[in-house]
């Protein structure tokens, strides 16, 4: 998006249509509450991208009621770079036009619902969609772009990441150090995300993922507190410094959270 002022895109439930943007810059987020692409329903059933006007169309045959359900029309240049190509509106995709255009973060399944996680990412994230050789992150892509556990470094994408939220153990805080400017070791971060620390349920912790480069950006979201913070990864230094993850900006409202970090 050409963000200016309030860089926010929120799809509270599923994105089964399409977002097209020239780039996603550093600091910009796209948050998808549930699925990107055709997902599964609350009972594990296939969730069709059908054209019914029902709130949710679970039964594929419903779509047969509408013979025009999958309209197509001639694309004058046979590529997907027009907002008026209607078939684009039916696929569940995020298209970033520029090469290396993903510098921000995309979170899928931000609600951390109980669906099997991989099925929440069945659509495509396309980086460089207006270039001859776009990168397509999707379950159908070959490594290293196979979603959701793609292994491509973020530098290949533009510095950003796409994270599929996992459903982890509930976290509950106890009295401890604030998270503000907290630095955690890798194991400590893992414990923070996995342990029970206190008696306030933090519900679900959304953990984005990105591996590889130093300074890679990961995002966690402490949902109950409505906070979101970036985690910077500092790899081990050549002089023996510890590998740490630095949490920036997790300040207000988090003073009772912690217990495993070191400042």
């Amino acid at each position, binding site marked *: 998006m050409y963000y200016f002022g309030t860089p926010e895109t929120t*799809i509270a*439930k599923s994105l*089964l249509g399409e*977002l097209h943007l020239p780039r996603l810059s550093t600091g910009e987020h796209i948050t998808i509450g549930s699925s990107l692409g055709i997902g599964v329903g609350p009972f594990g059933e296939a969730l069709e991208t059908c054209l019914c*006007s029902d709130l949710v169309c679970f039964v594929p045959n419903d779509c047969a009621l509408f013979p025009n359900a999958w309209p197509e029309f001639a694309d004058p240049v046979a590529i997907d770079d027009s907002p008026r190509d209607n078939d684009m509106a039916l696929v569940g995709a995020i298209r970033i036009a520029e090469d290396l255009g993903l510098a921000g973060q995309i979170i899928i399944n931000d609600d951390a619902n109980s669906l099997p996680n991989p099925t929440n990412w069945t659509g495509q994230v396309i980086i460089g969609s207006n270039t001859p050789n776009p990168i397509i992150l999707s379950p159908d892509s070959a490594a290293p772009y196979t979603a959701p556990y793609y292994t491509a470094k973020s530098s290949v994408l533009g510095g950003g990441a796409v994270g599929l939220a996992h459903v982890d153990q509930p976290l509950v805080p106890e009295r401890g150090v604030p998270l503000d400017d907290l630095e955690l070791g890798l194991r400590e971060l893992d414990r923070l995300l996995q342990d029970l620390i206190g008696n306030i349920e933090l519900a679900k912790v959304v953990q984005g993922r990105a591996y590889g480069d130093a300074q890679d950006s990961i995002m966690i979201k402490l949902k109950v507190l409505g906070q979101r913070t970036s985690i910077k990864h500092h790899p081990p230094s050549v002089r023996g410094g510890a590998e740490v993850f630095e949490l920036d900006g997790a300040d207000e409202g988090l003073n009772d959270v912690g217990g495993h970090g070191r400042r």
Partner: protein
Amino acid sequence: MKMVNSLAMLGALALGTVSYADIQVWTRDRNNPDPLVGPSQVSATVIPVPNDPTTFDVTFTTESLFTAVPAGSIEWIVWVFDPASANGDPVSSIRSLTIDTTTGFRQGNIRLIIAPAPLPGSTQSQPDFPISWDRLLFFTGVLDLGSITTIPADFAPSVSACIAVAGNVGTATALNPRDKAEVGQIYRSQAQGRTVNNQFLGGNIFADIVAAGPDSLAIVSSQIPNSTDVDRKAIGYIVAGKSIQGNIVSEGSPFGGPNNAVRSGSIEAVVVSSATESDPGITGNILAQRGTINSILTTGMIGTDAAAKSQIRAGRGITQIRAIAESSSTVLGVDFVADVTANLLGGDVDTFFRQDKSLNKLETAGNFIGTINADFIRPPTDTSTELDWGIFVGGTFTGDIHVRASVLGASIAIGSFTAPTTAMPNTGHIVIDHSLDGAVVATAANGKIPYISIGRTPTANFYRPGMLGSDSEPQTVPFRPWQPAPFNQPQVDSMIAAPEIGTITISNMFQAGDKRYAPRIESPKIGTLIIDDFRQGLVWSGHLEYVLDANGNPTIDAATGRPNLLTPQDDTNITQKSPKSNSAV
């Protein structure tokens, strides 16, 4: 003194030849013969009236009518006119016309016609109301008319009036209070003005025009005065050549009558026909707070003062408010400074007929300052095949739009919206509580939509809220980025589009089962985008389309083999705003 000023004004308009002494009042039994089926020339009786040479007021009594007409009729046609109008232009005026029922016979119903009676030997006359009140009265009865009053005031609903003057209705200097013509129904009030020595004179309605009675509906015709006048609105056709400065009020009646229902008080048409685009065409309020307003057509401005905007309010819907001459299709660059409310009666959204409390069309090539409230923005009927229903403002829209239910098969096409401010935080907001089945676009090259919300306060037990899609194929070649309706297509496009959009928040984006194409949002610059359930559809920011050659085909970049895309607008000069500000654009 006010009266002196008024008379001076009247004299000036008549170019020096004014008489106040010759007003006559004629009457006859309305039903014998039935004027609607009888001969056009019927006998009538002149009754004596005091033409006060000092005040120039005219008064007659129901007792005089009762005694003037044989057989004790209590339903009368009454002509009030300058006898000169029977064979030429009127030269006399009435400052105040009073119907007095306080002595003698105190009842009856009156059709009051301010036009020449069918006098023996007359060459022009108005035998009765036209069958349709939207027909012109061909002959005016007086030069100027100040006010119409009944004594007591509650006799007013028993009077229906048609008024045709050669000059003005009301006096320009009588503003506090204004002159007022208040009767039960006003089928017509025309002050079209006249040209004398190449000078346009008169043509103003300075007085308040008030219909104190309800519409005449067929189902309740036996319950209302003038019961044969069925299926007519309480205010019919109000036309002025130059300006309407008084308030046009159709009161209806509160609970009562059949089914203890609100009785509609509606307005058929308010027209200013000869004002220029910079003239104050309509500066008063137009109120049908228990009924409907069908047409407001003006060649001059509506309202002039943003601090005292004209109020246009209907309880049950407004068909059209347009900057256009009656007989023309050219939309004028007229500014509207008005608050428009089509759903004043409130209550539940009518999910069955879907017409109640709708605004069908508002159109000007000028600017709009004010607010718009309606339950629906939609065509007047479900069978309409036209695509140009909705809100069309060619200039800048300073204000907000709130649609309590849906935009259905219609468009909101605005040049650009003014951004909100701290003092006016809702400026530039479009809030559609239930669904958008149509287009919202900013048509100017630098047009902005600061804020649009769809489906956030949905109507219960109604179809699914959000953006629905369309049956029309999107316009592709040539690409027209900010147009609400594609060529040769059956429906309005399903699109939100603007060069810049601040915030978009939508409950659902989907392609309804009866739609062939999914909804779209197109804008090079989008601030905040929130969609709860993005089931089908497209949000496209950045480059919008191809660079086309002379034949309308995309040009291809030789190096990449890809089409050349239009360059998005420079976004480097966008001022960063606080995330908590609505002033995103």
